[in-house]
């Protein structure tokens, strides 16, 4: 619990950050691209096995605005489109495009657009979508979709509050590319026509603050704001509240209240997509933890297998325990380093057996309420646990389960070591599945009813026809009888 927190709850965590300068990644032998994007959305491959592709070429198309196109990060041949392990909590295989790189790194020609002010809003949004940009903070929501809100945006917030321990990819990017990030910010400000523009960084990022201060000197429209380093201040709603005092209600999006947050990395990708014309094919990834020899911030091609990045960080040391994609609080455990990094991968964390783990045996809930006092979404985790375990799904929804950002604060403070977030994730997926089944049942019911209606109609038509024929026959009979009688 933190008394100074500018939002409800939160925790002050040991940072474990080592902001090493960015190094370039080596070209891997293979690049692997899962077709599965955010949630249930798949991209559709537009190449086939054996095709030669160039860097920046689209290899899979987006089917809707919840999906982004995938671009090859280097030149080579399409080895196969087949199931491969993907970075997903299920640790299951799914269809991936695998490119064998040819080492030439030939690129498609890019079409730069330095005068973005002359482009329309739609043109800029289309460029952002075509460049495959999605939120690089880890949620990978398509950026063009987020920006194309019909609401009037007053405040643009560039989120540099990298609150999770160990992760330093955004901070290292600021140190190297502050100027470009500001250019990206100006593009976003132009696109949204936002009155205010704030760049938020944590108060312990001294060097980054200096670099940004220097870069914004000539741009009075942008303000640099420091926020206390309290986890999870990098959450959208928490950051907005910390910066402006404005509380975004549950079940409401920041855009509905006139705010839009964009991650620093995303802002940099927008600069590259608009000014230089190059699609999103690389991102900064922090490779860290006590299980690797040296912490590194690596500019890696998206699709690079994790094992190649580990090699660049000096390899594993003898005490390696777990491989985690993302940070220690919200990351997912992976079963193999054959998995490739995606647009969502901000960090590869390798834990060590020497580190303390909080996996003590679970005890019953003593209803101490510590979880509720640290919850940044102002939920009642103990109540949600109770409802979730007894499968009272409606009660869970009434208690705003879907506002849970799965930050893990409640897990960390729970004196009974109850895996609360895991329970919440399970309950969320049970509710989603239930809704999916209900929708399917509704569809089946409708189709069944339509079929019955159609068949009833057909039957009635047949009956009517038979009646008509009967009537005609009767008539003819009567006529012939009449004829017979006449003579």
């Amino acid at each position, binding site marked *: 619990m933190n008394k100074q927190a500018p939002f409800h709850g939160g925790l002050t965590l040991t940072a474990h950050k080592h902001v090493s300068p960015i190094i370039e990644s080596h070209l891997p032998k293979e690049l692997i691209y899962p077709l599965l994007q955010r949630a249930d959305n798949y991209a559709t491959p537009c190449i086939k096995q054996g095709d030669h592709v160039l860097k920046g070429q689209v290899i899979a198309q987006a089917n809707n605005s919840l999906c982004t196109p995938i671009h090859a990060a280097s030149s080579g041949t399409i080895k196969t489109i087949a199931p491969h392990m993907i970075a997903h909590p299920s640790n*299951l295989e799914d269809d991936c495009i695998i490119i064998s790189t040819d080492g030439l790194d030939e690129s498609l020609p890019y079409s730069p657009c330095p005068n973005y002010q002359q482009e329309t809003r739609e043109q800029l949004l289309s460029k952002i979508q075509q460049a495959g940009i999605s939120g690089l903070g880890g949620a990978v929501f398509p950026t063009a979709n987020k920006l194309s809100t019909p609401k009037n945006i007053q405040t643009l917030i560039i989120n540099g509050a990298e609150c999770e321990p160990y992760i330093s990819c955004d901070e290292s990017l600021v140190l190297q590319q502050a100027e470009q990030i500001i250019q990206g910010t100006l593009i976003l400000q132009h696109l949204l026509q936002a009155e205010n523009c704030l760049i938020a960084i944590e108060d312990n990022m001294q060097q980054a603050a200096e670099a940004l201060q220097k870069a914004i000197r000539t741009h009075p429209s942008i303000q640099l704001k420091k926020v206390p380093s309290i986890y999870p201040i990098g959450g959208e709603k928490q950051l907005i509240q910390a910066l402006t005092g404005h509380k975004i209600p549950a079940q409401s999006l920041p855009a509905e209240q006139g705010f839009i947050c964009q991650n620093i990395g995303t802002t940099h990708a927008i600069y590259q997509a608009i000014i230089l014309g190059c699609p999103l094919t690389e991102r900064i990834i922090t490779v860290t933890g006590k299980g690797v020899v040296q912490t590194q911030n690596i500019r890696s091609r998206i699709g690079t297998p994790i094992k190649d990045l580990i090699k660049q960080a000096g390899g594993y040391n003898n005490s390696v325990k777990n491989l985690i994609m993302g940070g220690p609080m919200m990351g997912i455990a992976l079963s193999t380093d054959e998995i490739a990094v995606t647009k969502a991968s901000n960090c590869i964390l390798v834990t060590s057996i020497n580190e303390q783990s909080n996996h003590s045996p679970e005890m019953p809930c003593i209803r101490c309420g510590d979880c509720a006092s640290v919850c940044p979404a102002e939920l009642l985790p103990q109540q949600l646990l109770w409802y979730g375990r007894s499968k009272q799904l409606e009660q869970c929804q009434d208690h705003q389960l879907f506002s849970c950002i799965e930050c893990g604060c409640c897990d960390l403070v729970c004196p009974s070591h109850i895996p609360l977030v*895991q329970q919440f994730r*399970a309950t969320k997926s049970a509710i989603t599945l239930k809704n999916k089944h209900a929708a399917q*049942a*509704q569809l089946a019911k409708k189709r*069944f009813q339509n079929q019955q209606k159609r068949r009833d109609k057909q039957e009635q038509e047949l009956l009517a026809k038979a009646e008509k024929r009967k009537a005609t026959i009767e008539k003819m009979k009567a006529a012939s009888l009449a004829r017979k009688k006449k003579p």
Partner: protein
Amino acid sequence: MLLLCLLFILLGLVLGYAAYYLKVAEDPIVEKIDALLPQTQCGQCKYPGCKPYAQAIAQGEADINQCPPGGEQTITALANLLGIESKALNTEFGEIKAPAVAFIIEQDCIGCVKCIPPCPVDAILGASKQMHTVISAECTGCELCIAPCPVDCIIMVTQKNKPTHWQWSTAHE
């Protein structure tokens, strides 16, 4: 007295109006039961569809444990709705199976159209002497198309274990 009579007449009219215009077309409990059934329209309960089964439950003719596709969840939901004790599925009506959809082995299909009328949700596409196929997104997995096929070219395919079908489990499960 007159005032009272007038009031009675007025209230009578209001009640008459309500009875005529606001009347409930159908027994609401049938709708509520029907909403809990999986709508596979498979007929395993021995009724010709989910709605008739719902009607039978409402009239006390059928028990709540005759729906294998709904399984334990449906039985619990029905028991909660009707305020009765939940019970195990009556296996006379079938066993609980993993969700599956019908699939037509295309090279074996002779285009006889015999599978098309039994499908309760019009999920089979085909014409006489043309190859048929199942629209898998619409298929409820009722298996009613399997028996009529003279060449046994329809099989049931269970869902592949894909990340999108995967679910978080709790430490307790």
